[in-house]
């Protein structure tokens, strides 16, 4: 089923591209700072986190300078939360398209994800600057970044398919998602290191797929060491399960979107 869908999506790649262009163009039209906004969000959060958690709270950061420590987690996190927030509303906001024209519906959440991915790429440029500033030398493990990003994309995709389709039926989802994401952020090792999580509950903690992803990003980029493959494989398994069921769920509901929305 997934393969068949992939083919359909390839046929509609131009629509996907145009929807992404629409979203980006519309967002930055009539704005002075334009694309720079993609950088401000992680940058400001990093500064605030550094002040609050490093200077005030004296949070340990596994020996990594705290700005680097938090920014390396904020980058994947902001992609994650931005994409899900945006895509949850993607179907409902395009009501007039869904009720008037046929096209594979998953294009809409995917377009939101791609848009967030572009923001992610822009925000990464600052990160490279930070790496140079702190004179971090990269190891060969850096190449693991690509498969990790792909795992994260699938995780985001799975959650987006689920939330966006559920939101068509119950708008409560749109209200709940930002709250869930906020809680999720504190359940992920963004402002604190995993080592701070008590051993006793850590087996539960690592079921959160973002744990493996964020931890790996930090290890392979900043510390230049191998990621924790145990954590990472849990992330992969959980991601796969979420994606599989969400996709099924989405496909099952897809044909009733136009009737309910």
């Amino acid at each position: 089923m997934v393969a068949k869908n992939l083919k359909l999506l390839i046929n509609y790649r131009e629509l996907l591209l145009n929807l992404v262009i629409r979203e980006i163009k519309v967002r930055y039209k009539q704005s002075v700072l334009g694309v720079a906004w993609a950088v401000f969000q992680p940058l400001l959060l990093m500064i605030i986190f550094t002040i609050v958690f490093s200077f005030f709270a004296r949070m340990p950061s596994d020996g990594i300078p705290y700005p680097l420590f938090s920014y390396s987690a904020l980058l994947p996190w902001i992609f994650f939360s931005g994409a899900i927030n945006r895509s949850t509303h993607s179907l409902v906001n395009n009501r007039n398209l869904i009720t008037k024209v046929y096209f594979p519906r998953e294009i809409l959440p995917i377009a939101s994800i791609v848009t967030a991915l572009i923001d992610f790429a822009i925000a990464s440029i600052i990160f490279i600057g930070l790496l140079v500033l702190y004179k971090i030398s990269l190891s060969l493990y850096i190449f693991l970044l690509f498969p990790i990003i792909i795992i994260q994309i699938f995780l985001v995709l799975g959650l987006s398919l689920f939330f966006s389709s559920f939101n068509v039926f119950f708008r409560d989802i749109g209200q709940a998602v930002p709250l869930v994401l906020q809680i999720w952020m504190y359940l992920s090792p963004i402002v604190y290191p995993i080592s701070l999580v008590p051993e006793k509950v850590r087996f539960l903690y690592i079921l959160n797929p973002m744990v493996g992803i964020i931890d790996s990003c930090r290890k392979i980029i900043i510390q230049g060491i191998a990621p924790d493959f145990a954590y990472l494989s849990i992330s992969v398994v959980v991601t796969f399960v979420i994606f599989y069921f969400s996709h099924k769920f989405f496909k099952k509901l897809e044909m009733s979107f136009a009737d309910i929305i």
Partner: protein
Amino acid sequence: MSVAINFQNVSKQYRIRTSASQLFYEYLSYLFRPVGKYKNFSSEKIWALKDVSFQVEKGSTLGIIGPNGAGKSTILKLLSGITNPTQGTIMIEGKTAALIEIGAGFHPELTGRENIYLNGSILGLKKREIDAKMDEIMEFAELKDFIDTPIKKYSSGMYVRLGFAVAINVDPEILLVDEVLAVGDLAFQHKCMNKISEFSNMGKTIIVVSHNVRNIQMMCSKALFLNKGVIQDYGDSKGVVVNYINFMMSMEKRKETEKDLHLKKSMEEKVKITQIKLLDSKGVDTNIFSIGEPLRIRIKAQSKSYISHPDFGVTIWTEDEKKIATCNTKFDAFICRDLKGKGEWECSIHSLPFLPGNYSLRVGIYDSFSGLPYDVWGWEKRPISFIVKSLTDGTKIAPYSDLGIVELSHNWEQL
């Protein structure tokens, strides 16, 4: 001929008035249903289509007609794949393009050109296909000068033209046309119609939904007449359209007669016209007049109850039922006294301007407030007519020669 579209026993059910919490309980009870015991309870449902079957041959044009809520647009939605049938199967051969709503997905902040790309790709066009057709689209939409303006600055007419221009250039094998043709000015409508018949000549299959039966008769070889989701008639478009018109007229008449009969009866009981006389200049009762002669219409009526300030109206008609003049107390601001029991009135026409021929009159007494008639004379049962005769000197001869209806007072001069 091969079949392009095959509808087989298709039904479509919609929920109406279902709130999110109703839906939620329904799903919950479905999720935790005792085995085999689930029943659909909470929401109201309607059948938008019920057991509809028809076939459309490749290259033919089918018109779908019917009153509001007949299920016409639902058929288009099913054909374009926006929604699935509740029951039955639909077979479609070829790429479809729906014009269900032109301009779907337009974004006000984007320019005309950007929206063409966006809308085109929504309708399934590739970028190079749009590139190739860009000039044609701009030309068709008549928007060359505004193509790089954000469409939030467009007028609604420009917006619609752009949408139609993109949709019509998708070049589908099956074209679905909804009522959208009702937009734009006449010239643009004409252009759209031409484009559609061009499609038809190219051997494409076209489905047209319209209230305009003349368009359907002109464009379609076959027609489908739906009412309340059920097929009433299907076949040759001329016959189907006639059936549809008859159906709509009988619906209209049934509505009217039920209401009107009741009202008419109660009005007639109050006042009746008892006598109408036509008098000439000497006060003689006659129905033959000469051109330029005065005509006085004497009306007698009797009321059973008290009538406040009744109004009178006199209309004059030619023999072929053309109304040519009206005299009305209301428009003349003449206020009649209240009527209780018998009364008599006179409308006097100073000089008859009509050419020789037969004319008829209708005279009515009306309620001054609502304008509804109490009683009218002059229909089949109580005709009033008069003749305007030719002048004896042989001028202004011959009724119905091609002179017109009225005689203007005039003269000629050589300058």
